[in-house]
């Protein structure tokens, strides 16, 4: 097996440069690459394009990159939880592209799977369809969407092995497996890194082929966005 280990987040992300296009895993604050984001905010990067379902909150997740003004363009499905975003966007400092969540997921999946374009019904009749090719199949209208790929994918899993195989936990899986396949360089951080052979091949969610670098993060805050409990 191929050994994908690197020492830590700093080493894993050291060649991410100004202007890079990044895919960042997670849904809200669930399953985000905390360590890689922390490593990035200690550098003075500019003009990043960040593709992620959300933009974090002001003091956690992608919000930290926003605060440091490292991001030039955000591609997301929902950014409603982040105030900093609104400030920079209104000031014209930030570009935003909103993509329906399912289309975002499928475009990233297509990027990893070598499908340059596909038809989807999502967005027909809405502003999302503007400027896009529309075609009828079997009596329904669909619009053409392109793949999404990136220079780097920063993802987070629960367990991983040295060969890059990953297992996620709960709904922290979300966009991470899709992004793993769509990054030219995919950097996976895990809570527990084990030798190749210790994970059951039948339980692996992301095969190691998609992962170029893997490391075990030190501490995971795993902040909860909306604690909701029953009586």
């Amino acid at each position, binding site marked *: 097996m191929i050994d994908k280990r690197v020492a830590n987040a700093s080493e894993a992300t050291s060649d991410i440069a100004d202007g890079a296009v990044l895919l960042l895993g997670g849904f809200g604050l669930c399953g985000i690459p905390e360590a890689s984001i922390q490593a990035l905010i200690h550098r003075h990067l500019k003009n990043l394009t960040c593709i992620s379902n959300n933009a974090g909150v002001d003091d956690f997740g992608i919000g930290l990159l926003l605060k440091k003004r490292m991001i030039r363009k955000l591609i997301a499905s929902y950014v409603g939880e982040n105030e900093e975003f609104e400030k920079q966007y209104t000031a014209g400092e930030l570009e935003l592209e909103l993509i329906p969540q399912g289309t975002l997921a499928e475009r990233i999946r297509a990027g990893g799977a070598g499908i340059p374009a596909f038809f989807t019904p999502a967005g027909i009749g809405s502003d999302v369809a503007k400027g896009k090719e529309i075609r009828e199949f079997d009596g329904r209208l669909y619009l053409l969407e392109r793949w999404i790929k990136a220079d780097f994918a920063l993802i987070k899993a629960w367990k991983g092995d040295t060969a890059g195989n990953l297992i996620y936990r709960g*709904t922290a899986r979300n966009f991470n497996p899709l992004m793993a396949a769509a990054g030219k360089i995919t950097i996976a951080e895990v809570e527990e890194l084990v030798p190749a052979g210790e994970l059951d091949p039948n339980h692996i969610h992301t095969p190691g082929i998609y992962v170029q670098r893997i490391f075990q993060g030190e501490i995971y805050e795993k902040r909860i966005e909306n604690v*909701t409990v029953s009586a």
Partner: protein
Amino acid sequence: MLSKTQIAQRIAKEIKNGQYINLGIGIPTLVANHIPDHLQVVLQSENGLLGIGPFPKSDNTDPDLVNAGKETITMVKGSSLFDSAEAFAMIRGGHIDIAILGALEVSENGDISNWKISSGLIKGVGGALDLVASEAKLFVAMHHCHKDGSSKLLKDCKLPITGVKCVHKIFTDLGVFSILPEGGFKLLERAPGVMLDEIRSKTEGKLVIKGEIPEMESFDLG
């Protein structure tokens, strides 16, 4: 006039045995609390779970287990976890039977606007576009009017449209409505105590009232 909880209770009565259901954020989320125990139904969370359970006890929250509203949840027995592409494959592929969404506006031909907008800025489109474009039966749960008193049941949507001709039924604090194939909100039921005149005055789009309109069966107002 129904409370949000009562709107959710009323919608719960529409649910049939064996259905897979996606609940949007807001009133739709409350529907889960009112599905009768004898029904076998499964709730999907489009981030990647089939089988949403009740909210956890306060000592049992798990940051790795949230719903589409980023709220902590639990899983019922027989749940399955998957990634977001698979979650939307289920939606787009016609495997979800019912989608229950909130809305800002619905038009008389069944268009829906439900994007999150704040001070003129669209802050998100989320998963709604995929849901409204799917084959799932689309139920809308919302207040009949905006806070300023203006109607949300319009001739045409004024806000950006999420989906066209997709709404199946609308459940508001005033009543239950279906969308007629030729256009128009057909009143099916009145909320307890609500008079036709009130519904008429608060519905901007074409309202169709045919015959006797029954008052909603009374239910637990708890």
